[in-house]
Each structure stands twice: as C-alpha cells, then as structure tokens.
C-alpha cells in the first residue's frame, strides 16, 4: 500500500509540476516581453534627452510587478544609465550590456536564460529602443519564483495525498479491527478450549457470549455456533460425569455385595482339614461382579457331606 501511495504521489506531483512550469514559464516570457517593449516604447524621449532620474522613476514602478527581478536601461553609447540592482550591477549583466549591438536591429525581443553570482536564475528579455540607436531595455524575470511555486504546489499535493493515505489507513484499520477482533477472540477461545481440561467450558463460553449476542453477521453466526457447541459439550460432559458417578456408585455397591458374598462363602480350603479322607476346593467366578449361585458344604452326619 505504501508503494502504491508512493507511485500515486510521485505521478500526480510530477504531472502538476510540469504543467505549472510550462504555464508559468510562458506567462513570464509574455509578461517580460510586454514590459520590456512597453518601457522601450515610452523611454525614447527620456533616453535621447538624457534623463536618468525620470527613467529611474519609470522602471521603479515596474519592479512592483510579480516576477520582475530587475530592469536595466542602456543608452545609445552602451552605458547603463538606469537600473534597479542592489547592491551592485552583477558582472554578467555588465557583460551583456557591453555586447548589445546590431544583433537587435530587427526589433525582436530576445530571451536568454541567465544565472549569475549565486543570486538566481532569470529570464533576460532585451528590447531595443529606436532600433538600438537610442539604447536598450533589459528586463529580468525571476525563474526562482516559478520554481518556488512548483515546489509549493507539489509539496501541498504530497501533503494532501499523505493525509488522505493516513486517514485511509486509519479507517481501514478500524474497519478491519471490527471484523478481526471478534475473530481473534473466537480463535483464541477455540485454542484455549483445545488446551484445557474441559472443566471450565462454561467460563470459556461466557467469554464469547457477548459476540454471540451482539454480532448480526457471519462472525455472530460463528460465535453462536461456538457457544452452542460449547454448551452441548458442556452438557455432554456433565451427563458423562453423572453417568460415571452413578456407575461408580453401582460398582461400589457391587463391590460391597461381592465382598459380603465372598465373606459368606467358606474361606478356608480345605474346609475340613481334620478329615483326611477327602479334600475339597471350590472357586466361584461370577460372570460380572456377583454370582447367582453359591456353594457351601456341611456334614449331614458325620459320614455324609453335602453341598
């Protein structure tokens, strides 16, 4: 699931990021070109009459527009007569302004990506004034803004997806919990039953009673079956115990009867040790515990024995 999340987040972010980049880049290019052209159109007189202060007022106003990082005005002699840099003119810009020449006679704005002095990444748009004869206007649009917008939106997206992910997990967890928890209890219960000596079935049954009562779904059915089974088991065991007890009781009585019976029977063999003419031995093997037929021997007269 995490991998899935990762894929979704990355894909959507990449797509958004790309779209924003394209959109903003185009907008910045257009904006910058328009500004450069607008300034170059309006500064002809100011350049020709050499009024740097008035030019400065004009370009200072444009600096308020979002995305505009700097504006430079170069006069016909190639000198920078107005600019908005603080604290100083970056070397790259000074180089660029030196290079301005007949390249720009065709009146088209040229756009040039420009990075300098760790200060940033800019789109430098140049527009000639009066074909370059009166001078040039350079407007720098800050690509860093595009980047930071992209990062901001991508981050927001990632956070959103992450939050949704967390919520989904939490929700799923809760949902599954509702199912698995009773299952766990039932499983636990069954294994306890298996391990027990079957004497505490009623207790075990009571453990899952609540589930049997409350759940209306399959889990509930299972629980109710468990309870039923355990009850039946319990009952059977009770019956068995009872039966065994009865049997033992009977057995006990039979044993007593047998003892009594046996004690009635002559114990001593031979029974008439002083009569040497005969020897008598007897054995009784009852079919079960007690016999129906018994033996004994008496002297009818001193010469006749009967049994």
């Amino acid at each position, binding site marked *: 699931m995490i991998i899935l999340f990762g894929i979704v987040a990355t894909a959507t972010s990449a797509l958004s990021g790309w779209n924003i980049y394209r959109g903003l880049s185009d907008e910045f290019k257009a904006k910058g070109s328009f500004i450069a052209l607008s300034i170059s159109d309006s500064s002809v007189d100011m350049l020709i009459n050499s009024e740097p*202060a008035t030019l400065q007022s004009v370009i*200072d106003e444009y600096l308020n527009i979002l995305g505009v990082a700097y504006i430079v005005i170069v006069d016909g002699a190639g000198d920078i007569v107005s600019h908005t840099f603080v604290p100083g003119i970056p070397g790259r810009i000074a180089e660029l302004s030196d290079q301005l020449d007949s390249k720009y006679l065709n009146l088209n704005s040229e756009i040039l990506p420009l990075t300098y002095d760790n200060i940033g990444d800019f789109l430098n748009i140049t527009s000639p004034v009066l074909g370059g004869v009166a001078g040039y206007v350079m407007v720098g649009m800050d690509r860093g803004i595009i980047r930071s917008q992209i990062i901001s939106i991508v981050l927001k997206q990632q956070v959103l997806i992450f939050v949704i992910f967390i919520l989904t997990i939490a929700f799923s967890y809760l949902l599954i919990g509702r199912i698995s928890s009773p299952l766990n209890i039932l499983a636990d219960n069954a294994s306890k039953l298996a391990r027990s000596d079957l004497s505490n079935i009623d207790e075990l049954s009571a453990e899952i009673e609540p589930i049997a009562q409350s759940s209306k779904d399959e889990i509930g059915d299972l629980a109710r079956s468990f309870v039923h089974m355990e009850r039946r088991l319990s009952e059977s065991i009770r019956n068995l115990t009872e039966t065994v007890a009865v049997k033992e009781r009977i057995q006990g009585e039979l044993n007593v009867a047998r003892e009594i019976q046996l004690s009635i029977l002559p114990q001593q063999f031979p029974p008439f040790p002083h009569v040497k003419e005969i020897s008598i031995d007897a054995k009784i093997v009852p079919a079960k515990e007690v016999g129906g037929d018994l033996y004994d021997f008496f002297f009818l007269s001193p010469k006749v024995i009967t049994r």
Partner: protein
Amino acid sequence: MRPFYIYILGICLISLIYNTNTLAQDDDKILIGMSAAFSGPSRNLGYELYSGMMAYLDYANKNGGVNGKKIELIAYDDGYNPLPAINNTLRLIDQDNVFLLVSYVGTPTVTRVLPVLKIYEDKDIFLFFPFTGAEPQRQAPYKDYVFNLRPSYIQETAGLVRNFVGIGRPRIAVFYKADAYGRSGWDGVRRELHKSGLDIVAEATYRRGAEFESSFGEQVDIIKSAAPDAVISIGAYEASAGFIRDAREGGLDVPIANVSFVGSESMLELLLQAGEKNSKDYTHNLINSEVVPNYIDSSIPAVREYRELMSRYTPRLPEAVDTGNSHAHVPENKQDKYGFVSFEGFLNAKLLVEVLKRLGDEFNNSEIKRTVQNISDYDIGLGEYVSFSAGNNQGLSRVYYNTAIDGSYVPIKNWSVFEK
C-alpha cells in the same frame, strides 16, 4: 413680488459661484498646501521643513499677514511615497481649494506630482520651492508649473566633483539610493566627471527604506574594491549614516561627501551616537554640500533672523498629520533647535510671503507667474540675491560645503585639508 425674490436669489447664487471660482476660500485667509514625509525613514525632513516654514509664517501672521490676510498652511503626510503624494495634492487642490502648493519633499514624490499640476494648469496651481534638487521640475515640460529656490543636485554634485578633482582625488565612487533621487545624484556626478574625461570608478546602491541598523557591508566591499579617492553619497540620513559607519569599520577612510537632501543633522546625530557606543569617531573626513549657508554663521542676516524666529517657535506637527497618522511624531533627540532643513523651510516661507505681498490687490492665481518671474535681485538676507526670469525658475545657485568638527558642522574654509 415674486420676480424680485428670484432676482435676489440670482445675485446670491452668482456671488457664491464667483467667490469659489476666483480665489481660495475666505477673504481673510490664504490657504497654502504641503505634502511631505512626516512618517517613515525620511520623517525628519518633512518635520524640519515644516518647522522652519511655520516659524516664519507665525511671525508673518502676527505682523498683519499679507495685506491683512493670515496665511494658513495645510500639510499632509505622504511618507515619501508617490501615490499618497498624488492623493494629497488632489485633495489640496479639489477639496481644500489651496491658493498654491509649497515645500513638497522628495524626488520620487515631486516627479509624480508634476503631471497633476499640468492637468490643473487652467487653475494656475504652482508648486513653490520643493525640497528636491532633481531635474524634472527644472526642465521642460514641467518647469512651467514649479518655482525652485534651492540649487539642483547637478550643481551640488558638480561642485563636489570639481573640488575633489581639484585636490587630487579624481577616482570618485558613488553610493546611492535605488530610486529617482539617487539616480539624479549619480547622474550629476557622472556628467561632471565626463567633462574631464573621467568616469565613476565604482557604484553601490541600497534599497529605499533601509534603516541605520541594516548592514551596508556589501556596498562597502563593492566600493572599496575599486580603491576610490573619495565617495559621494546620495542617500537618506539613516542609510548614509549606516554606510559611513560600515565604511569606517571596513577600513574605507577616504572622504565621504553627502548632498543637502540627506538631512545633515539627523545623519550626524546617528553617527555620534554610534561613535559613542563603539568608542570611535565616525564623523571625520565627512563633507556635506548644502544649498543654504551654515546656521552658525551669525554674520549673515538671514541666519540671525532664522535663529531668532526658531527660538520663539513652538515645535508642533501639522494638524492633519497629528490626528490622522499614528506613525508621525515630533522626532525626539533634537540636540539643537537649528538645522539646514528648517533653515531652508524658513527661507522658503520668507520668499513665499514676499511673493504673496507682491501680488498686491490683484490677488489672483493668474498673476503668480508674472509676479515671480519679475523678481530680480531680491535680498533674502543671504548675501546672494534671489532671481527668477522667464527662462529661469530657480532662485538661488550657490552651493556651500561643511564638515563635522567636534560634533557639529562648520563651513569648509579650505578644501586642501582633504588633500591626499
């Protein structure tokens, strides 16, 4: 009877209309309007200029005003920002019906207000003596709507450059504010250097709004790496003082010169405070150009008058600024009652009252231009005369130079003390 009443009503209406069309307001008051920085990093400028003006206007009003009419100065705060300045101007013209505008502060603000004057040219609303040496209000097309008293930045910077070059310091660097004012000064330095085939050896800018506590280390590094002989600074007092402090800390010991707009006393005070804290002297090798003489020189009549009136003046904020603005306040730590900016305000007011008096009975906006352009060799008490003409809308042109010694400004008698 009916027609008679209508007739009376008609006359009343007509006189009402007539009154609001011709002049400002009531017959016993002359309303003049001002928009300046009373808040933000340049607040001391608006306040001091206003104080100097009010010191003189209080005196003038106590002595009969102008032909019996009292002068009332309505001042609004623009915080040194162009848009509020424009709004204030529209309010002063449309709602307050001022007779004229006076003592605006700053290049970015004044430059943006100029077109408003052009729009109202039918009303003949003029801007008198703005506190800025920039070129736009000294050149076509806006010079027709403005009268300047002070010399321009071009004149100030040209003077500084000539003096520096003259004492063997031709490698000049410029530290300036990234706005139209800074650019003006930069342009002035550059033009003068070009005349001798030289150029600015290094330049560094700072963003408007920078405070004394900010670090100007980067700017110092840029300038220092070009090994200049001198630095000309076109800034506001907080940033200029901060730059000087960081320059001296960074081992840049060459003379640093400021122009009059910096707010000299405020800058000096910041340097002295910092110097006390760090047990250093940040005020040596400091040069300030000014457009008025030093107010310690009591040999000058205008200085005497200024000092007298300032000592009688009760420091206060303009009513509109006081009630409407939580950021404006009477600046604390005013060591001295006197200063270059309030002296200039004083002179502005004095000349303005003179102009109003000269309007005489024909007290009308349409007479202003002619009246001012007729002023020739007027003695305002400086030793230098004030002159205007059809081609010249700037009354004075002399630049003065001061340096800081023992915690206050004294005139530079000889530039050779700054020789290499």
